[in-house]
């Protein structure tokens, strides 16, 4: 494990406060708020004036906002670089949001290495995707509304990443959930998109409910939600926090588990991943930006940000690691059999997110973030490439009806190949460095089972990436004949981002060399609290492990090549599919998870609700109320029948009254 420089590993808020008073004048702090404000401004302009502005202006406003925001982020990043490592902590208090009785929550921004990396990823990849969208969404009627939502998404994501307390993080958290709802359901005329959007928001809300509980626990335990104060107190309360509390788990374990439920919901891990594949109903740039690069990584960012708490809760870390690993292998298997180009990449994203959680779970927070950073580049590339293909084939998404596109779409093909290789984790590309580090950290930390799962996952990743590439770009064209002649490559606005991302997919990895000590890790070290199994790193093993994972990934690609390209093995996939009939069908239907939810959660709830309404509300309560009214009415008719109108009865009633009254007086007393 890396021998982190422990003495200044952890930030003391007090230290930082004195410093800020020193260079009061023009300091970079009060530039932080510019980063999210520009996208917000872009949103407001486009949502209100969008319809009246020409498309050119709309795209300039949107992309400009992202561009400036990226520029400011870069500026802040370089300012942060030349600060001494232990001083890289800029905090800006905007205003007190909620203050009542003992609860206080301020709206403030925090820029430190972790959030610097994140805003770079968000604004950088975001800007490229904005440019790409100009081409992709060119002839869509709601052009302005699309860019407005994209900018709103960027605003909330930056809010999430720059927040200096858990409450503002939650605001960003649900804000991005809203934008994903709006963007998935962008083509709302299509019922599938509308229900996919609703599904995404509700499943996210399930996670958010858990996240909220985590928030409440933090507040009731620490009395505050500000990161600085919480982590500082966590330091002080070390002994008590870990004492076994409710249900045998310590308080900090409960907190971290609750927060992780939120992460599961947002980053589409088992069991709450079901919304991501359906989210492919949205436009492809949306999938690229939200469901690959930024939003789904919010979960990992949150876990990394709360690393001081997670290190105090080894059990939670184990849970994170296991969930990550299982999701990785689970999603990888499904990806191997999917035929929709976007769904393959979606399951691949879920799998890669699993890897990130695996990395974080085994204590290598920096490696997790590093993989997040590289993944953003090549996964966005894959999605945009797929977008270009779909765009060219007039919304054809089934890879079995593609093939032989390389000669017609050279740029897309080659960039797609780079992305595929990076995703598979082949040597020079970014994926190799980040994924290998995670596998190595897992192995080194003694989590051999997890390491093996990771390795198996790597093999499957290699396979399905190769399958995807070969079926789409190699072989002969199997699609709709009259489309065959006018397949054209992506226009420049879509091409350039592809190329830039391809370059990134290659270059991004070099920042992380040598593993665990690369400049990237050094940069993140001060923020990420190294804990857990940091026993002496067996350096000797590093290289052979890397070679092993490379071979495994290569084998995967090789099998892919054999299955789908080489003539001799042409019918092997069909044979195996036939032989493993049962297994194939189960995996093809995504293990029937969606059906399970529908039959065992959604369906019964609807029936119960209907029963509650008709059964309890109408029958029982209203029945009782109307019953009483009916009773009164019957009583009334009864009394009226006694009133016969004959004088005799009246005299009788008087006599009865007299007899009873006197009888009581004489004997009753």
């Amino acid at each position, binding site marked *: 494990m890396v021998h982190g420089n422990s003495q200044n590993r952890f930030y003391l808020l007090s230290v930082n406060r004195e410093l800020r008073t020193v260079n009061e004048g023009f300091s970079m702090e009060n530039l932080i708020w510019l980063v999210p404000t520009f996208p917000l401004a872009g949103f407001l302009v486009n949502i209100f004036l969008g319809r009246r502005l020409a498309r050119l202006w709309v795209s300039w406003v949107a992309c400009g906002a992202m561009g400036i925001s990226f520029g400011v982020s870069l500026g802040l990043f370089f300012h942060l670089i030349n600060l001494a490592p232990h001083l890289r902590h800029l905090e800006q208090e905007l205003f007190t949001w909620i203050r009542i009785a003992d609860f206080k929550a301020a709206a403030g921004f925090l820029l430190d290495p972790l959030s610097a990396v994140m805003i770079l990823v968000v604004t950088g990849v975001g800007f490229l995707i904005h440019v790409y969208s100009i081409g992709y969404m060119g002839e869509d009627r709601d052009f302005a509304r699309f860019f407005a939502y994209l900018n709103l998404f960027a605003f909330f994501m930056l809010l999430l990443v720059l927040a200096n307390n858990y409450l503002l993080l939650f605001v960003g958290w649900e804000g991005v959930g809203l934008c994903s709802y709006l963007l998935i359901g962008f083509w709302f005329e299509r019922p599938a998109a509308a229900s996919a959007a609703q599904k995404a928001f509700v499943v996210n809300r399930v996670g958010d409910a858990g996240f909220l509980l985590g928030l409440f626990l933090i507040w009731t335990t620490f009395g505050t939600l500000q990161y600085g104060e919480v982590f500082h107190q966590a330091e002080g309360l070390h002994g008590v926090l870990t004492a076994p509390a409710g249900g045998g788990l310590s308080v900090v374990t409960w907190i971290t588990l609750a927060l992780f439920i939120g992460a599961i919901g947002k980053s589409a891990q088992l069991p709450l991943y079901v919304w991501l594949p359906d989210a492919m109903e949205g436009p492809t740039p949306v999938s690229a930006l939200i469901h690959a690069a930024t939003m789904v990584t919010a979960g990992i960012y949150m876990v990394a940000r709360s690393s001081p708490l997670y290190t105090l809760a080894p059990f939670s870390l184990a849970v994170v690691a296991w969930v990550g690993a299982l999701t990785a292998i689970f999603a990888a298997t499904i990806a191997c059999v999917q035929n929709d180009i976007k769904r393959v990449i979606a399951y691949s994203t879920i799998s890669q997110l699993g890897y990130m959680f695996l990395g974080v779970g085994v204590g290598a927070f920096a490696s997790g973030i590093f993989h997040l950073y590289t993944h953003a580049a090549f996964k966005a590339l894959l999605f945009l490439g797929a977008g270009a293909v779909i765009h060219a084939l007039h919304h054809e998404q089934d890879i079995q009806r593609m093939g032989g596109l390389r000669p017609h779409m050279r740029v897309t093909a080659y960039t797609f190949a780079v992305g595929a290789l990076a995703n598979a984790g082949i040597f020079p590309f970014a994926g190799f460095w980040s994924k290998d580090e995670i596998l190595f950290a897992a192995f080194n930390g003694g989590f051999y089972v997890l390491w093996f799962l990771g390795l198996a996952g790597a093999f499957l990743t290699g396979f399905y990436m190769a399958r995807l590439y070969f079926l789409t770009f190699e072989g002969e064209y199997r699609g709709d004949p009259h489309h065959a002649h006018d397949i054209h490559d992506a226009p420049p606005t879509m091409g350039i981002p592809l190329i830039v991302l391809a370059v990134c997919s290659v270059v991004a990895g070099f920042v992380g060399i040598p593993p665990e000590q690369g400049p990237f890790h050094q940069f993140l070290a001060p923020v990420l609290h190294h804990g857990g199994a940091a026993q002496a790193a067996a350096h000797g093993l590093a290289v052979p492990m890397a070679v092993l994972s490379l071979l495994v990934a290569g084998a995967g690609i090789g099998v892919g090549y054999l299955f789908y390209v080489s003539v001799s093995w042409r019918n092997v996939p069909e044979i195996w599919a036939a032989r493993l009939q049962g297994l194939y069908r189960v995996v093809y239907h995504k293990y029937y998870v969606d059906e399970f939810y529908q039959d065992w959660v959604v369906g019964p709830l609807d029936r119960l609700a209907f029963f509650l309404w008709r059964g309890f509300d109408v029958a029982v309560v209203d029945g009782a109320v109307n019953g009483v009214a009916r009773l009164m*009415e019957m009583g*009334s008719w009864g009394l009226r029948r006694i009133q016969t*109108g004959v004088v005799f009865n009246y005299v009788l009633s*008087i006599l*009865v*009254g*007299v007899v009873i*009254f006197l009888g009581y007086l004489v004997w009753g007393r």
Partner: protein
Amino acid sequence: MSVTGTQLDWGGMAPFLLLTATALGTLLLDLFLSPRHRVRLAYLGLTGLLITMALLVHGFGGQERVVAEMLIVDDFSRFFHLVFLLIAALTILVSVKSVEQEGTHQGEYYTLVLFATLGMMVMASAADLIMVFLGLEALSIPLYILSGFLRGDVRSNESALKYLLLGAFASAFLLYGIAFLYGAVGSTRLKSIAAHLGHGAAWENPLVFLGVGLLLVGLAFKVAAVPFHMWLPDVYEGAPTPVTAFMIAGTKAAAFSALLRVFGTALSPLPPEWIPPLWVVALLTMGVGNIAALTQQSIKRMLAYSSIAHAGYLLVAVVAGTSRGFSSILFYLVVYAFMNLGAFAVIIALARQGEESPTLSSYAGLGFRHPVLAFSMAVFMFSLAGLPPTGGFMGKFYIFSAAVEADYVGLVIIAVVCSLISVFFYLRVVVVMYMEEPREGHSSPVLSPAILVTLFLATAAILQLGLLPAGVWDLAVRSVQSFWG
């Protein structure tokens, strides 16, 4: 008791004499007037009533004047006299139009009403049980005739017959009770009875509790408390509407004045074992009155049952037995009089020639055909139901607080549940008026000025009693103080 030549206290007797004079005056004037001028009889009656009222108001606060130990004219009786005269005046106002339509016997009608009022006044200021009996009969006999006034209408005859037979039957019980009490105490004067029953032992004497029992039975019949209530709905439905109006407000007020006089002076420390039967009677009266009224189609019959129910609420205050309880009865009777007379004024205004008692459906859509009539009817219904901004609420509020102060919370809860039931059928009238489409073929009645005056007076009084009840309330408290214990 030696019969000395007691000189008559003319001052005290003035109101009674004035009223008798007015009654005889209308009777005589009727002989000389031609049919067209009969309406002047009504004016004479009204002026007589108003002068008597003025006299009483002037006399308020004056010291107690006992007339031959038989009649007491104290603030309590003055308060009730005012109420009776008010009721009589409103009744005359209300019945001017319908009596004119009948044509015959206008003189007799007004005379009987005035004599009945005289009977009430005697009951209210009776100092002697016999005076109670005399007042009762002086009230009842004119009412027997009045309820049978429409000789041609079979329903009126039936109502008169029933009222007569059952009334006489009940007053026989009353008398028998008085006889026994006379036997036990030696005198029928309320003061001496009170002295005699002062110490608890007296109650053990069989003659006493038989006497008191029968006395209460007689009074309970007049108040229409439950087992003795059966006569009321038929009589009130059968009698001509103005007479029903007079009876519903007048007899109840008179009966309760006698009840309070007897309870207040003679039986004031009622031994505890007498409370449960009264408790039960109050409960039954409220329950039967409200529940029976739920499904009534005829408005007159519904108001008859509702008057039984309101008697129940008043009995709750009687059971409470405190001075605040009694003053709440006084206040409630004032509000009650206005509510009912107002409601009947509307019924009379809408009643058409020769039609039986009006059913609810004939009021459909009234809200927008006659906004004035409908609004005042709505105010009376809300007040009868006991909804806040009206006097009815304040009346009930006083009764409930008196009962709660006397620790009868159980009874109050029952009273509250009963008034909840009553909300349904009172508001159903408003529903019919405002929320249902009007049916064709309803002649738009001409609003005679007399009816308009009554409506205005009643509505204004109810809203005033609802919003600023303190004035009348303090008057009621002072009146009860004057005769209490």
